[in-house]
């Protein structure tokens, strides 16, 4: 059995394991414990096999196809595992295994609740099945079936705690937008199938549509996949749905499902649409840069920890799409090697975001589990009460803030390297636009760092702001182990960039025809993405230097043994002793940025000096600009339709009679 067939067989095994997990979830109605020792282990198995399949497909650089005896009689399902699918199987597996380890500990709290554990188990399994199906599909039919399975299953997961009205509302918004997205994707495939003559991707690839229709399909694909990925005007479901879902599901949704949308977009735009046009790239760069900046600005203002993470996901997906836009620009203007660099940056960013956001959502879940609170204004001082979770969360925050030598830095650095090669482009407009986008990216990175300093600082440092947070406890072994696994994966992604870039380059060779052979030209230690003498990055020496510096600093500042440690109140101005309310609050931390970027937010703020209260509501202006008018227009349309829908039998009969008469009149 060759490597490709083995990889595909492993991927098939992953799908079977996910389905088995969904089926075993049913047992949880009678025996809630089966969720912990059957459904979640099966999910872990699924993740491990998917990870192995992805690695095999990438390392072997193989493309394997198969036709399943499923689907409609004249329309069998095609599956295909190539390096691009491999990258996303890798991402799925790398996040799913820790989530499956985390699950039993986290869901134990739901056992005595009112919510159906069986629903959680079944829909988690189906959700994973859907994501695997999307990544493996090689025809539009299977792709759409799997895509809808993914959307619907995740809807049920978002609405898991359905007794909370807010969750129902979030889930409905999610369902609505997922449907609009699904419709747009279906139409995009319709355009492609019309020119290809078949639903199979192979036929679409060999007969791409002409330039105009390709642009139509691009716009539809951007609308559809962009909604799912949370691009700017369509991102509003994301900060609503992520906090509503259980934390391990939020981790899966944010870390994997958004990447599946990226995968779908890459599959359609880079492979099926024919020769890329640079206008598409410009659109993507603009949308991506705006999404990244606005996403991080909103992340900075959130007081709900999970909402903050959700907005940060919006920001990161913006960066991914910016890199994809750069790749399209380079590809459209005849620089396949640079396009490969930008694509590698996008894939690397996807992987990093998956690992880091998975870690942070699991950390937020641990905070929720241990402290029963996710509002930053009520948290505080968790580092002493939950030391392990705090450490893992700190690492995640540092990675998200793109500090070297962590993994977040590698992908942002690669994106910058791609953007800085814009001088090679022929068009002057593009030579100006791309550096501007790079500047937006730099702003995003800086604001992102501020957002995560604020998140970690408010939640884990200082003193507990409420009584119940003061009684927070560290979470169980499984939940800590899951976070540790993700930290380990982050470390691998941070310290072995050359290996990973080499793996991702097999996927870019498939899409652009060019790899990144020069990336490892100075050995595995040094990453040189453009040329050996242009730019290089070596995380391990940086880590060593930082470790050395840190150790010497700790040694230099160690408390001397002679003077005993004295515990006392800090300086209190001679007034009352300091209380937790005197701490720097999360809202206060973000206040300067709120003033500077006031035009972005819809602020509702007032201070009552007498009562010493301050009320702040930060909302998205898009609600008023786009969503509310759209809702009103739809309501009006529905009202018109209601006039015809009276519920009177005779009215319907007269409609039928009139229709019949008109039709007869037309044919004669």
């Amino acid at each position: 059995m060759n490597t490709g067939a083995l990889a595909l067989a492993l991927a098939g095994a992953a799908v079977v394991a996910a389905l088995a997990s969904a089926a075993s979830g049913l047992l949880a109605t009678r025996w809630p414990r089966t969720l912990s020792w059957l459904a979640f282990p099966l999910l872990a198995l699924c993740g491990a096999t998917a990870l192995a399949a992805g690695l095999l497909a990438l390392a072997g650089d193989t493309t394997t196809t198969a036709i399943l005896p499923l689907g409609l009689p004249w329309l069998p399902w095609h599956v295909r595992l190539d390096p691009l699918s491999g990258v996303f199987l890798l991402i799925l597996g790398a996040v799913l295994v820790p989530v499956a380890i985390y699950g039993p500990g986290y869901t134990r709290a739901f056992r005595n609740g009112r919510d159906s554990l069986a629903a959680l188990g079944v829909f988690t399994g189906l959700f994973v099945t859907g994501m695997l199906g999307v990544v493996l599909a090689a025809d539009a039919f299977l792709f759409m079936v799997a895509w809808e399975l993914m959307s619907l299953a995740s809807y049920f997961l978002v609405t898991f705690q359905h007794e909370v009205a807010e969750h129902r509302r979030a889930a409905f918004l999610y369902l609505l937008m997922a449907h609009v997205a699904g419709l747009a994707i279906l139409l995009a495939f319709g355009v492609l199938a019309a020119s290809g003559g078949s639903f199979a991707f192979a036929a679409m690839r060999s007969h791409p549509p002409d330039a105009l229709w390709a642009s139509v399909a691009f716009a539809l694909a951007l609308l559809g996949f962009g909604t799912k990925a949370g691009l700017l005007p369509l991102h509003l479901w994301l900060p609503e749905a992520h906090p509503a879902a259980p934390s391990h599901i939020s981790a899966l949704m944010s870390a994997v499902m958004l990447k599946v949308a990226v995968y779908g977009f890459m599959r359609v735009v880079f492979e099926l649409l024919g020769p890329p046009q640079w206008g598409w790239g410009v659109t993507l760069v603009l949308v991506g840069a705006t999404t990244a900046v606005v996403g991080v600005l909103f992340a900075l203002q959130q007081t709900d920890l999970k909402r903050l993470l959700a907005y940060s996901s919006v920001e990161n997906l913006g960066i991914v799409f910016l890199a994809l836009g750069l790749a399209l620009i380079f590809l459209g203007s005849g620089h396949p090697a640079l396009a490969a660099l930008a694509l590698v940056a996008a894939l690397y960013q996807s992987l990093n975001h998956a690992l880091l956001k998975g870690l942070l959502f699991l950390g937020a879940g641990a905070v929720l589990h241990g402290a029963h609170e996710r509002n930053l204004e009520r948290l505080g001082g968790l580092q002493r009460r939950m030391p392990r979770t705090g450490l893992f969360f700190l690492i995640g925050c540092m990675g998200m803030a793109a500090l070297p030598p962590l993994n977040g830095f590698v992908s942002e650095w690669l994106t910058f390297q791609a953007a800085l090669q814009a001088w090679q482009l022929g068009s002057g407009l593009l030579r100006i636009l791309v550096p501007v986008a790079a500047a937006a990216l730099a702003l995003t990175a800086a604001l992102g760092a501020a957002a995560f300093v604020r998140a970690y600082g408010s939640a884990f440092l200082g003193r507990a702001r409420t009584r119940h947070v003061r009684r927070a406890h560290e979470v169980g072994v499984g939940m800590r182990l899951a976070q540790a696994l993700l930290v380990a994966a982050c470390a691998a992604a941070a310290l072995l960039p050359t290996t990973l870039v080499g793996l991702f380059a097999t996927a870019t060779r498939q899409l652009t025809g060019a790899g990144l052979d020069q990336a490892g030209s100075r050995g595995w230690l040094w990453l040189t993405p453009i040329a050996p003498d242009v730019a290089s990055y070596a995380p391990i020496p940086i880590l060593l230097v930082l470790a050395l510096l840190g150790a010497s600093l700790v040694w230099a500042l160690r408390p001397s043994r002679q003077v005993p440690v004295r515990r006392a109140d800090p300086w209190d101005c001679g007034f009352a002793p300091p209380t937790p309310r005197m701490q720097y609050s999360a809202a206060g931390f973000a206040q300067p940025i709120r003033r500077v970027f006031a035009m972005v937010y819809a602020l509702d703020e007032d201070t009552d000096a007498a009562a010493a209260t301050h009320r702040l509501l930060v909302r998205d202006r898009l609600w008023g600009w786009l969503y509310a008018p759209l809702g009103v227009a739809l309501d009006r349309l529905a009202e018109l339709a209601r006039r015809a829908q009276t519920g009177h039998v005779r009215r319907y009969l007269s409609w039928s009679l009139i229709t019949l008469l008109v039709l007869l009149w037309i044919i004669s």
Partner: protein
Amino acid sequence: MNPAALPLLDQALLVLAAMALFTAFALLAQTRLTAAIHTFAWQGALVAAVAALTGRASGDAHLYVSALITLALKVALIPWMLHRLVRRLALERQADPLEHPALTLLAGAGIVVFSDWVAEPVAHFDASATRNVIAISLAIVLLGMLMMVVRRQAVAQVLGFMAMENGLFLAAVASTHGMPLVVELGVAFDVLVAMVLFGVFFLQIKNSIDSLDIDRLSQLAEPVEDDDVRGDAP
């Protein structure tokens, strides 16, 4: 086309079909249920006669069978079932006047003209009476539907539905000398089953809303939830 120039059989066919059309109008305007059921039985008898005559003209033996089935079902069984239903529901004396009788009949006349115009292109397929019979059958179908629109009584609606079926049967007999016998048996059986189901439904409706006025059926709809209630909710 001069009717007097046609063979005698065709002339008889035309007369019978025209009388069937007349019964359709009578059904449309008849306010008393029992009288309407009788009119419906007469329409069935006329259609059966058309089928038998066509069988005589073309020599198709199975058209006699069709005529017999029609006679048994439309003239005897279904009117009898409807009668029994009306008696059980105590509707014999109930009148169901039209809201705008003159307007309805004018619309019916318009439908007949329209059907004639629609059947115009069929003219050149045969020189015989077929074209006129097709126009008439189309008119009977549309009049049946119009009856369902203007009548509020559920039993009258069933009559309209059955009249539509009569029109279809007439069209089949006139244009293609009847459908295959298997199809016809199937249709006859369907009509019978529909009749039985209607009977059951009416008893249930009568029990639950104490009336057979179908305009009141909309009250059976589930109450609409919270924010959907606007304007015309009861």
